[in-house]
């Protein structure tokens, strides 16, 4: 089975500051990695995903994430945040093969609050 740990439940930052949201995963098989964002009172939408190839993945709204296989991490970063980035962010994994029915396993989420 796989698991996802988001190391910070809440991250407060000031506007225009850089931010990193940390995600570690555990799995005995290969996984795909995802970051989803949930704005207040909305459903989840994809920020970015890592499937293969370059370990640095760029997503929407200026976010990027780096896959580190040796550290089993997939941390999300943004060099300069805006008030509108205030949301909850979820890291998730899916198993690459083997009858998983494409299920996702989610972390518990990190609430990013951007203050003026």
């Amino acid at each position, binding site marked *: 089975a796989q698991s996802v740990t*988001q190391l910070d*439940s809440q991250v407060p930052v000031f506007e225009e500051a850089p931010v990193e949201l940390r995600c570690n995963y555990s799995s005995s098989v290969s996984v*795909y990695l*995802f970051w989803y964002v949930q704005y207040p009172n*909305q*459903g*989840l*939408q*994809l920020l970015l*995903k890592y*499937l293969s190839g370059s370990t640095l993945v760029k997503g929407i709204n200026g976010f990027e994430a780096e896959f580190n296989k040796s550290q089993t991490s997939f941390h999300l970063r943004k060099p300069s945040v805006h008030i509108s980035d205030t949301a909850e962010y*979820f890291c998730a994994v*899916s*198993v*690459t*093969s083997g009858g*998983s*029915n*494409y*299920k*996702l*396993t*989610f*972390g*518990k*989420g990190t609430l990013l609050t951007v203050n003026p």
Partner: protein
Amino acid sequence: DAGITQSPRHKVTETGTPVTLRCHQTENHRYMYWYRQDPGHGLRLIHYSYGVKDTDKGEVSDGYSVSRSKTEDFLLTLESATSSQTSVYFCAINPGQGPQETQYFGPGTRLLVL
């Protein structure tokens, strides 16, 4: 827009009553999922479906059942609602080309069990 709707969007019910939540999609995707979201727990998979009449349990399936008699509809039923089932419920679809595909989520149903 993945064409996913959920109904009702909000519901208040009493302990012991049955509740059915509906997820409807317009794209005829094979894979559909029900999650619940609770503070401090993230999203947890309740049940999922990989085709009409093909369903299976997720990690928090106790107290829930599902049905899928048509491709476009995936129903989640709480046979006898309890206060611990107060939550926000999300439906999602996978377009079905593989685990690398993005899951698309509905807007959610907020359920309060009194």
